[in-house]
């Protein structure tokens, strides 16, 4: 499919080639139109007939093909090619803190590539994908669709993101939850640099709405290791007062605070049945995605 990919900015053909065999799996029950790899709770109509299979006890009576029974006196069950699909909703944190990057790509750019690639994977398995971008408020909302054309809209939307400082993550997640009509897989891509309780409250909103929530916690390697030497002045990206210090001497304090934070987020996600993956932006995108999909399958 990649050879027929429209001209997009955030889809790297090389990465797509590496992740083309991956399949995003909705681990729990999602509301889909078809029955297939994702079991649908709804009894909807079929989409496209595939072939017949001899009836066996336990098969739904309504799937019996009575015309064939009339002609052959045998019970056959109709099978459909397309099974059900799921909605995948990508939430991208476009707050100012996401603009930090120690390397060539900052967290936001990395998140955009990540989102575009996941969107491609979801569309490839004929599921629907939607996108929401938020910072201090929800800046854009693209409802899930399964047509490949949506990839262009997603790409355009990702290009237009202009980061601003964030106030509360919970509010934005609640707003997004309200916008979503069906139960979906919600993939939150964010550095989660906010109050842990606020974050968990937001995630709970999504969970309560029946969404299957996946958190891709995106952090820069410098944020994870704090490798600075000498005297540094740190200017907060979200309006915090600056700090001039010798990072070497406070590294242990910093890493301890970071560890506490990460532990709290991980524990909170576990408690809320939210899939949590820490993403180091220095790692290759395909490796991160492979690991993420593998975790979901297992």
């Amino acid at each position, binding site marked *: 499919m990649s050879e027929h990919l429209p001209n997009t900015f955030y889809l790297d053909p090389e990465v797509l080639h590496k992740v083309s065999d991956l399949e995003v799996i909705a681990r729990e029950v999602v509301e889909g139109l078809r029955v297939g790899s994702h079991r649908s709770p709804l009894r909807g109509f079929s989409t496209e007939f595939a072939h017949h299979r001899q009836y066996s006890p336990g098969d739904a009576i309504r799937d019996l093909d009575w015309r064939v029974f009339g002609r052959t006196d045998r019970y056959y069950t109709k099978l459909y090619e397309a099974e059900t699909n799921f909605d995948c909703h990508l939430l991208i944190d476009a707050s*100012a*803190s*996401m*603009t*930090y990057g120690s390397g060539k790509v900052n*967290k936001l750019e990395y998140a955009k590539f990540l989102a575009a690639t996941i969107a491609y994977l979801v569309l490839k398995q004929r599921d629907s994908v939607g996108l929401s971008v938020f910072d201090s408020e929800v800046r854009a909302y693209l409802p899930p669709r399964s047509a490949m054309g949506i990839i262009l809209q997603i790409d355009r939307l990702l290009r237009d993101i202009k980061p601003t400082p964030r106030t509360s993550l919970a509010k934005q997640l609640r707003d997004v939850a309200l916008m979503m009509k069906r139960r979906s897989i919600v993939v939150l891509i964010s*550095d989660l*640099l906010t109050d842990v309780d606020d974050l968990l409250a937001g995630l709970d909103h999504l969970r309560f709405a029946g969404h299957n929530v996946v958190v891709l916690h995106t*952090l*820069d390697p410098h*944020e994870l290791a704090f490798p*600075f030497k*000498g*005297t*540094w*002045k*740190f*200017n*907060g*990206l*979200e309006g*915090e007062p600056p*700090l*001039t*210090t*010798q990072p070497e*001497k*406070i590294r*242990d*304090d*910093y890493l301890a*605070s*970071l560890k506490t*934070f990460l532990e709290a987020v991980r524990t909170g996600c576990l408690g809320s049945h939210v899939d949590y993956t820490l993403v180091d932006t220095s790692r290759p995108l395909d490796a991160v995605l492979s690991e993420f999909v593998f975790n979901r399958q297992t």
Partner: protein
Amino acid sequence: MNFVNPWLLLASLGVALPILAHLLNRYKFNETNWAAMQFLNREVRVRSRQIRLRDILLLMLRCLALLLLVLAFAQPALKHATGFVAQLGERRAGVIIALDASYSMQHGDGKTTRFDRALKKIETIAANIRPGDPVTLILLGDEHRVVVRNMAFVPERFAEILRAQQATPESLDLDSVPRRLKELAEDMVAPQKEIYIVTDLQEQDWKNRIAWGELGRLAHLCIVPVTGDVDNLAITSLDLVSGVLRQGTVARYQVTVRNYGSRPATNVKVTGLVENVTADTKIIPAIAAGGSETVSLFVPFQNPGPVKITAKLEPDALPADDTRRAVAVIRDRVSVLCVEGTSGKSGGFISAALRATGKTAGQGDSTVESVSWVSLPAQDLTKFDVVILADVPDITTDQARRFEEYVRAGNGLIWFAGDNVKAAVWNERAKLKGTPLLPAEIEQPVSTSDALGVGGALDPSLPDHSVSRPLLSLPEDLLSEARFLKVLQIKPAATSLTVLSLAGSGAPVLVEHSIGRGKVFMFTTSAGPTWNNMAVTPIFPMILQQMVTYLTGREFEKPRLVGDSLSLAYVDQPNASDAVFDTPSGETITVPVREHRNQYVALLDHAREAGFYLARVSVQAPGLPVAVNVDTRESNVKCLSDAEIASTFAGTGIAVVRSDTDLLNEIEQTRTARSYWPFFMLAGLLILVVESLFADRLCRRTQNV
């Protein structure tokens, strides 16, 4: 407070470096936008401020340690410290000990010498020097010799060095002592400098002579006298008076003995030795106090070659000046070429004069060959030791050059005036390029007779000259028997000496100058009786033989004094690049041969011993003895009296301490400076240790946190 090394205080500017580094670190920082500010929370900010405060504290400790170390290296000292401040410092001084090592210090009383007593005094001074203090020991003499310079004092090592010292045969050059001591004092680094001069305070050297100048401002000056008895006899001269120095002849040497003591000396025995074998002995019945007596020693010469001649006294309180040495080179024969300008009588007179022999003279010790001046070009000059040119009309430039080379090689030339001499031609052709052949420019003949027709008498202008010396021993009437009616008027060259002149007018009669290793004598009068009657008087053979002896002598026959340089001159460039001098004590000194004014010379700068040196052109070559005697100026061992000491050193700030008690008191009173460098060094190192421990503890605490 003053500093021994004040310039090192500049290093205190180095304190600015850690401060500068700190400020640079503080104000020159990297800047970054940062997302995870929530982890740089209040606690971290407080810790940052604590770290900054600790850094400032560590910085201050480092700066303080640095300052204290700089102060320690600058060696602060206080001249007059009291109380607690005095307790913090150590009494330190740099000591320069100047030991008079001139040979008068060898004067003894039968048990100890002045030098032995001087060493005892130095031991007393050394007992009060702290280990580690800088010490300089210098031996004073004609050439001052620094034994140790700014040595960190170690008692055992210094005592060992002191025991190895001996008095030298040199005299004391006191005039250069203040300058030398000033150099040493300026070179010494110490909070307080002290100079001790241990000397016998010889009257002739010290009495009202020396100006110590600014030396007193540099260091505390203290003189430690080691005086003694004044009795001393010395041989002050040993000179050849007469004799032709040929094999089988006897020469007369004159020995002068001086009594420097305060009492008359009686029955003074003088022994003459030739090659350490007694040749003659004389007894001087009495020598008055302060007076001199002269005796003649007759020395026979049995064999040709260099002969070592020694005159000795019986040993007395100062043995160094009881011996005098000379060297004579005895020839078996001397060849003289007499070139006559005319077929007159001058050649005959010269031959007769040179062949005139006494009853002790060997038969045929001089050969004289007379030739006419026209046959001069055919003569091989190398066969002759001396050439006499008598009334030769002129000379070619080539002949002049040949004579110049002949004389430069060490031979002699005697030139006589006469009626035939063409002055202008001689002046022109004898001029040569460098040194002229003749010692004077010839002008016209002038009459020196008075109105009665009586010529001028002879006057030895240089009484100490070898040619003049026998004339002085002649009776007055015999000397004045020779009369000169006419002499050439001359213009002597700057390098020439007038040996004989006419009494009254002072007109030069005999002029001398040196060319290379040889000499040229120029008579302004004739050899024959045309211009004078000298040729028919006994003076003529005397002068002529003395001149030939003098001209055939060698440079190294002239005795040297201790401290003089010894030279060995070569005619041509030698094969060996080094000459060898064997000292009287048996040491062998190798001296490089250098080219100097077209001559090759090996020069031993400073003869340090009295005795016979042996100069050799190479290690394998036979040696030529050179006599080296002590300078008898040092023989007057009379010391300054107490009154003279008081007047000499009044107002100079120089302390004179006689007894050991006075010496110890002087050291105790004057050594007041205290050095504080150990205190500052200790404090600096202590703070460095504290700073290191503090930094280490902070580092560990940070890691634990």
